[in-house]
Each structure stands twice: as structure tokens, then as C-alpha cells.
């Protein structure tokens, strides 16, 4: 913790704020990907970001662990302001888990090795300890008997659950989910969403880019609607679905619920 405050350039870290995004702009030439995004995520808060594709949701998510850079604005994660400084970027990434649309498991490593790689090489954990840790998470995502298989032998839903376990093995404070179920068949969606619901019950901070409105209703503290690189609407799930404030939100919901 004290290391984190060393790296923070922005005053004292606020203990109750997990992610703070201030005036974030990103553009390529004339094309704006993100326009003036302001967002404060409290610790333990669960946020679902939805909106039409190309609206900047994934880009915003990927700014939080700096897989994307930006032209203007600030992103502060757990009190560490992300800058060009590689040390800060690594500090944040070690603290933020990420789950991708296409799982991105390492195909040359077994399920267990996928999960122990970062604990061993980033956290410098002894191998046995890392394996024990990985097993507890693999049991939680219900893959305990497939740990010595290679990812290609697993179904999509199983792969995504392994990806969740892999991220959890770093004991992150914040989890980012970038469309975790949109590459999956309906029945596999359910097993992944169930895992995410369980995770949400543990009180970890979650930012989820997803069109799973059922999940948003059940789990989210706030739903964010993004379009055209802007945050159009931020609302509690009940209000968001039942009486959306903006015309664009209404249109989007109508399309997606049909």
C-alpha cells in the first residue's frame, strides 16, 4: 500500500475510490474515440457499461489498465495515476484483473500453468503456493478436474471461466470484463454469467462491458450507457431499464431487448 501512495502523483489516495477518470479524451486524427469521460467508481462498486458497438466502451475499459493510451485527461486507479511511467503501469496492471471477449488463454500452457504464470513471475510466489492458489480459484470456477489440459481442449465457456480464475490468481482489487460472453453460445453464457454473479457477491470492484441486460439488472450498482465516445447516461439499473432519461438510451434498449 505504501508503495502505491509513493507512485501516486495526485495527492492522497482516496480509500473509497477504486477508479477515477477525469476529462478523458482519445482521438485518432479527427476521429474521437472518447470525449470528455468523467467517472468515479467506488470500491466494491459493480458497473455495467453498455451501448452500441464502436461507442468507446471497450476503449474506456482498456484505458483503466492502459492497454490503450489517451491524448488528454487523467486516469487514477487505486490512488495511482497512470502516466507514461512503465513502473506505474505495471503497478496498476498487477492490481487490475482483466477478462477478454476471446478469452486469450495462453494456448501453449495448460490450464494450471495459465493460472500460475503471473503469480510465479510477477508476484514471485513459490510454484507450489501458486498452484495451491490456482486450484482454489479453479475449484471456484468449477474447472478442478481439467487443470492439466491445454485450453484448446476446453469449451468456450470453460475457457472463459479459466480466464476469470487466471485473473483472480493475482488477487486483484478491480476486475475488468470486456464483453466476456459475447463470443459464447447461450448455454455457455449462463455458466460464465453465474460465475460472475458469484464473484460480484464477494464484493470485488467490477467494471463489465456487456449487453447482458439480465446480468446488469441483477448485479450492477450503476449502468452506464455510452455512444459516440461519450457517456450518455449513468443510472441505477432499475431506473435505467424502466425509465431511461435519454432518447438514445431508449432507442438502444428497444433494439437490444427485441
Amino acid at each position, binding site marked *: 500500500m505504501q508503495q502505491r501512495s509513493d507512485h501516486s502523483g495526485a495527492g492522497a489516495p482516496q480509500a473509497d475510490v477504486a477508479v477515477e477518470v477525469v476529462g478523458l479524451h482519445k482521438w485518432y486524427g479527427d476521429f474521437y474515440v472518447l470525449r470528455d469521460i468523467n467517472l468515479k467508481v467506488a470500491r466494491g462498486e459493480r458497473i455495467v457499461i453498455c451501448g452500441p458497438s464502436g461507442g468507446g466502451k471497450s476503449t474506456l475499459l482498456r484505458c483503466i489498465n492502459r492497454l490503450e493510451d489517451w491524448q488528454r485527461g487523467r486516469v487514477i486507479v487505486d490512488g495511482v495515476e497512470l502516466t507514461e511511467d512503465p513502473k506505474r503501469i*505495471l503497478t496498476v496492471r498487477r492490481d*487490475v484483473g482483466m477478462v477478454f471477449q476471446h478469452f*486469450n488463454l495462453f494456448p*501453449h500452457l495448460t490450464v494450471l500453468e495459465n493460472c500460475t*504464470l503471473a503469480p510465479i513471475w510477477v508476484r514471485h510466489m513459490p510454484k507450489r503456493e501458486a498452484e495451491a492458489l490456482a486450484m482454489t480459484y479453479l475449484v471456484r470456477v468449477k474447472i478442478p478436474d481439467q487443470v492439466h489440459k*491445454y485450453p484448446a481442449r476446453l469449451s468456450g465457456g470453460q475457457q472463459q471461466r479459466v480466464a476469470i480464475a487466471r485473473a483472480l490468481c*493475482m488477487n486483484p482489487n478491480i476486475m475488468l470484463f470486456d464483453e466476456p460472453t459475447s463470443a459464447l453460445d447461450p448455454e455457455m453464457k449462463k455458466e460464465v454469467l453465474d460465475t460472475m454473479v458469484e464473484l460480484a457477491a464477494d464484493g470485488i470492484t467490477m467494471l463489465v462491458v456487456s449487453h447482458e441486460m439480465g446480468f446488469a439488472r441483477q448485479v450492477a450498482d450503476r449502468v452506464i450507457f455510452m455512444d459516440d465516445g461519450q457517456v450518455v447516461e449513468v443510472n441505477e439499473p432499475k431506473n435505467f431499464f424502466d425509465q431511461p432519461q435519454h432518447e438514445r438510451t431508449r432507442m438502444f434498449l428497444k433494439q437490444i431487448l427485441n
Partner: protein
Amino acid sequence: MSAIGGEFRVRGAAAHAGVFGWLRANLFSSPANAALTLVCILAIAWIAPPLIRFLFLDAVWSGEGRDACLASIAQPHPGACWAFVRVWFSYFVYGSYPMGERWRVDLFFLALALGVVWLSWLSAPRRDVGAGYFFIALPILSFVLLHGAPLIGLAVVPTALWGGVLVTVVVAAIGMVFSLPLGILLALARRSDMPVVRLFAVAFIEFVRGVPLITVLFMASVMLPLFVPERLAPDKLLRALIGVALFASAYMAEVVRGGLVAVSRGQYEAARALGLTYWRMMGLVILPQALGVTLPNIVNTFIGLFKDTTLVFVVGIFDFLRTIEAARADPKWTAPTTTVTGYVVAALFYFVCCYGMSRYARSVEARLARAGRR
């Protein structure tokens, strides 16, 4: 495709109808196939008998000089002059390495063979120790053995006396051992975010690829002494070794780059999102996949390199092929068949080595595929 289909049919047909069924299913399954089979049989019938006659039946197996291999009434059509190979064999292997010190070369061959087997046998015990042995202990041991170390009583043997298979193996081994890591570094540099690093890599790779190996070797051996006093110039063999290694690394860089491109962006992102540093990401996630994908091309480059080692003769180094050239010029053995016999030996040696590498690569590929990694 057809090989796989063929295998299928072999099993099915063999069970039913024995040899004839097998022949019909595999060699005469269609008019086109039958025609090709006949052409191949004719070609074999045309080539094989004279070859067997020359290499074995009419061959001269022993003798002390050219007379044994010349045409005479007793042997109107003398075949391969194996007597010549028998007499010159140790020269082909050691070059002019002093007789009394040749056990050192044998020991080097043994140590190298141990390292190669240890590393290439994928289920060998303690392959990490094997890698340490191969990349650290073996080079030091080889240098001490081959070059000599007066401190421990091994006389220095100047590289001008080295020759034959010894030189070919040394040049090829050094080329392979250095070109792979250098090629990886160059490939990474070429994809780097840092413009200066990228520029250097591109300039080096494109320059070396744009120049024949012979030119590199000439530059190393002829031009270098023009700038550096002869006394300070490095050893001739060493210069050639450096030239070959740098040359091969430029090609290897392009091969590795092909593998890096084949690894999806998602792999880089997943590795970065876990907080891996650049080098850990490359070493643990990206390169193992990239090198696996591109293994056939790496071995292809190695095979090319192995054969390119013959070019060191242009700067006066007696590699295996050059020792055969030298031997066949010996007036004591001037006979029409000695030259051909020498070249047969050379072809056999290069073929066995290259085919071995190729088979090994195939078996590793099959193993990777079986592991379900692809």
C-alpha cells in the same frame, strides 16, 4: 492430403486383400496413379542398377594408390574408389589437426553429441541442466579442447590446421547457436516501439540480406586486415565464424518475425494485463508460441546454413568439402573415379545431416500437434 488418404487405405486394404490389395489401393487406384507408378518404376529401373554397380559391385575397396582404381584388363570398368576414401578418411574428419592431438577432436565430437541429444530429446531428464551445459559449458570446453590451453598441458593448435568435418561442424554449430538468439533479438528490435532500435535492426537485416554470404566472408577475411594491422586482426576462422553467424542471424530474424506476426494481439494484451514486463511477456508467452509456429522455417534456415558453411573455403578454410577437393588433387590418387567417389561421400554426409534435422523437426511438430496446442 494424399499421404493421409493413402495411409487410411493401407490399413483398410491390407486387412482385406494382402499385398495385391495394397498395391491396387495405393499404386494403381486410378489411371493417372497407375501411369505415375509406371513412370517411377521405369525411372528407378534406369537409375538404380548402374548406381549399384558403380557404388558396390564394381567398386574398389582397397589399394595403396591410383593404380588400384584405374581401368585395367582385370577391371575394365572400375567403380567407386573406396580405397581412396579409406586412405584419406581421417583427413576428411580432422583436416591437418596434429595426429597426436586428434583425441581432443574426438572428445569434442562426443561432448557435442551429448549436448545435442540432451537438448533435442524432449523427455530427457533435467533439460534445464542440459541447456546450461550446451550453451555455457560446451562452448568453453570446446574452445579449451580444440584450441588448447597450455596451462593444463594442452598444446595450442592453430586454426589453420583445423579442417574437415571438424571445421564444418564448428562453423555450423556456432552459426546455429548464435543465429537463433541474435535473430530473435533482431526480430524483436524490428518490431520495437523505439525508432532508433527499429532503424538499426531494419538496416542490419536488409543490408545482410542484400549481400551474398561470399561477399560477407571476403569482407571479413580480405578487407578487415586492410584496416587493422595483421598482428591485431582476429583469427581467420574466427572472422569467418562471425561472418557466418551474423549472416545467418539476419535470415533468422525474418523467420522469427514471421512467427511473431502469427501470434494474435490478444496474447500480448492478456500478458500485459497480467502485469508481465516486456521481456517476461516475450519469453514466457509470445516467443514460445512464435517459435513453435515457425519451427519448420527455423530448421529450414539451419539446413541452409549447414550447407552454406561450405562457402568458407573461399577464404582458405579447409572445411569438409574443401578437404575432399584437396585430396582428389593428390597426384598419387589421380584416377577418373576418385573425384566422383569423393563427391559421393560429401553428398552422403550433407544429406544424412540435413535429413536428420528435417526428420527431427517433423517429429517435434507432430508432438506439438498431439499435445493439442494448435
